[in-house]
């Protein structure tokens, strides 16, 4: 896909076209609640915006532990939200390169240069990487999901230059129980570079710039609590009727007019849009409005 995930902007365009307004740089500080019903939001700057419905795309912990006051929520719901597991496990390293790296293991001009590459050649290596994560460290020998998108779309970098995208596991939300430091971040990046360099001689010399995102940066930049990429772990206890919490798996919340539509809800994370679509359907149902204009996901025969 040429436009990358930027294609989402098309969605934004459509929203505007159908009469919606998008405001960026507008951090919500609080959801306004009167008599158990959501009335709008208060922005970080203090501006109040009123609305009939409030639909939160933020993860379930952020929404109900930060944006809504405790007194508005039943204990059992709060307990379950607190127990919701959203521990991060991944990081990202984006690398700008002044030339295409070489992988001697691949034939010259192999189409694999345009593919999703992995250096992990045994399940044991993956498992050991996870052992580090369990012990509260980033993986010394991580497993990478690595791509060079400029081999497909050269416009993403200046002519002749390249961009490498590395998805990295594992990176815990905290290191030995304390917050990440810059030194930790650099150590994490080094584990990635070292692995790539092991398979690509001269790799280090090609690096022009590097952007390193540990769960700390992911939380700070994208607002994903603990840097969890799916807005909540996708384990049995947090799937289907248990997502995000038992009793509230259908996008509603204990607060009237306050809905959830992010990946914390069913069916979960990934760039997929299903939680948002399903939430919209439920909201329309509550409003007794038709959903015929929503195309079905697909026919099942």
């Amino acid at each position: 896909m040429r436009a990358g995930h930027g294609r989402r902007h098309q969605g934004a365009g459509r929203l505007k076209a159908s009469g919606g307004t998008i405001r960026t740089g507008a951090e919500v500080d609080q959801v306004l609640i009167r008599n158990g019903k959501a009335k709008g939001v208060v922005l970080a700057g203090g501006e109040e915006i009123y609305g009939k419905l409030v639909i939160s795309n933020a993860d379930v912990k952020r929404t109900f532990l930060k944006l809504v006051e405790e007194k508005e929520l039943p204990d059992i719901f709060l307990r379950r939200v607190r127990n919701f597991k959203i521990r991060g496990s991944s990081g990202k390293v984006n690398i700008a390169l002044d030339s295409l790296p070489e992988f001697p293991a691949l034939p010259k001009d192999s189409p694999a240069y345009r593919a999703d590459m992995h250096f992990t050649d045994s399940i044991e290596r993956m498992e050991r990487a996870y052992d580090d994560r369990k012990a509260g460290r980033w993986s010394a020998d991580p497993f990478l999901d690595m791509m060079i998108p400029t081999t497909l779309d050269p416009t993403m970098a200046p002519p002749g230059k390249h961009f490498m995208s590395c998805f990295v596991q594992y990176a815990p939300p905290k290191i030995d129980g304390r917050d990440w430091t810059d030194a930790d971040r650099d150590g994490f990046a080094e584990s990635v570079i070292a692995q790539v360099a092991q398979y690509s001689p001269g790799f280090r010399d090609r690096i022009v710039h590097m952007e390193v995102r540990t769960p700390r940066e992911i939380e700070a930049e994208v607002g994903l609590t603990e840097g969890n990429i799916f807005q909540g772990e996708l384990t049995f206890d947090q799937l289907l009727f248990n997502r995000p919490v038992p009793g509230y798996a259908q996008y509603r919340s204990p607060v009237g007019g306050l809905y959830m539509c992010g990946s914390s809800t069913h069916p979960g994370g990934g760039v997929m849009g299903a939680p948002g679509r399903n939430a919209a359907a439920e909201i329309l149902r509550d409003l007794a409005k038709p959903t015929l204009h929503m195309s079905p996901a697909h026919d099942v025969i």
Partner: protein
Amino acid sequence: MTSSDLNWDAIVIGGGHNGLVAAATLARSGRAVLLLEAGNEVGGAARTEEFAPGFRVSTVAHLLNRLHPDVVKTLELERHGLTVEHGDFMPSVALSKDGPLTLHGAYGEVLTGASPSEQSAWKDLRAQLLRYAGVLKPFLSRRPPGLGGMSLAEMTGLGQTALALKRLGKEDMRDFLRVLLMNVYDLLDEQLSDDRLKGLLAFDATLGSHLGPRSPTSLLGLYYRLSGEIGGLAGAQVQPKGGMGAVVAAIRAAADKASVSVRPASPVAKVIVEKGRAVGVVTQGGETLRAKAVISAINPATTILELVGSREVDTGFVRKVKNIRMKGDAAKLHLALDRPPQFTGVDAADHKGRLVAAPSPDHVERAFNPSKYGEFSPEPVMEITLPSLADPSLAPSGACVLSAVVQYAPYALREGWATGKPRFLKAIMAQLETYAPGIGATVRHFELLTPADIEARYRMPGGHWHHGELQADQMLMSRPVSGWSGYDTPLEGLFLAGAGSHPGGGISGAPGFNAARHIIAMRA
């Protein structure tokens, strides 16, 4: 007339406790039953044996916590010598450098050594765990629900489970469904804060399986443990007087009373199949014995792949059987000690209890990690008992027997057990020394049984506790393999009745009992 001329109603292969229970139950229905046991003694992994001159011990299973009440009642085991008294309930002691913590009565009716807030958190969690295990408990005494063509009885059984769920109340039922397939580590983290208590529970949940506390679904192991009962109390545990052999002796007496013919030292080499039907067995000695039904209370994979042979069953079935995971991680240590050891901070009464060295869930997890790579735990976790304290007949006077189940000792140790065993023993002794300083100097004899030793000695493939991992994918309708979970096999007249079948291992008699009842109901 030799027995080969007889036509038996049923031949039971394997005289482990499940084989004995199946044989006794079938014989009580009026069937002529022959039981063939490979070893010189019956009992399988439930035996009391001498491991050093004058020292006797329950050589594999050493704690009784799940002998099924239906088995006790139907076979009248109390009349045949089984005694369980309330005073026999053993506490569980969580050993720690910070001093011990003790669960008294039936799985911690009273908790001592913990803060008041932890005590109240434990009270809630214990009640919850027992409630949820209670929902699953009725499954122990039933055939697993079939997927196609359920009988009325099976439907009723499932209906009862649905009702039991409803009785929990809405919120409790929701929590039940949420936590069912969780890992024990996360659940403990939600509700408890004392590492010693959490370590003990994490140990119990993973005992006998190839799981660490953080492995998905590890909580099921704890439910399995708590679905068991003894002396009418869920979660309770006892050390039978005379060791596990005494329990088997009671079952054996019930079998004798029902006129089961028990033949030790008679390993079965082959199940005879004629036109797709099992019609008898051939012993290793070459004797042919015929019967209307053949009941195998040994390992399911051994039964199908070795005794029946893959030629008599479909490739798909062979594939499933071959894929049953059963590489054990539990070793057994027996020490003959000059005198009773002193565990630091543990009082005299608690020395008679179950002493668990698993100081935190992280410790258990770290102990598990190496086993994934075929290495033993450098700091193993273990469950220690000193049976001669309560039953002096097990050791010479003044001396003491120590019996411990130790994890993790992977069956297929990468370096091989020949060199690994002495190193593993050293690692275990180093742990023991930290909790009971000076114990090493009092060791007169030792015996360490690795899973490989257990396999060789007790004919338990992989040395596995349950004759097949007891995990979500090998439970209920998937035990031993999907499609064949109700004690039947693709061969007419051949049934399975050992721990490898539903509900699983432990000294329960449940698989043997359920299988026998199924055969009786089928009029096979």
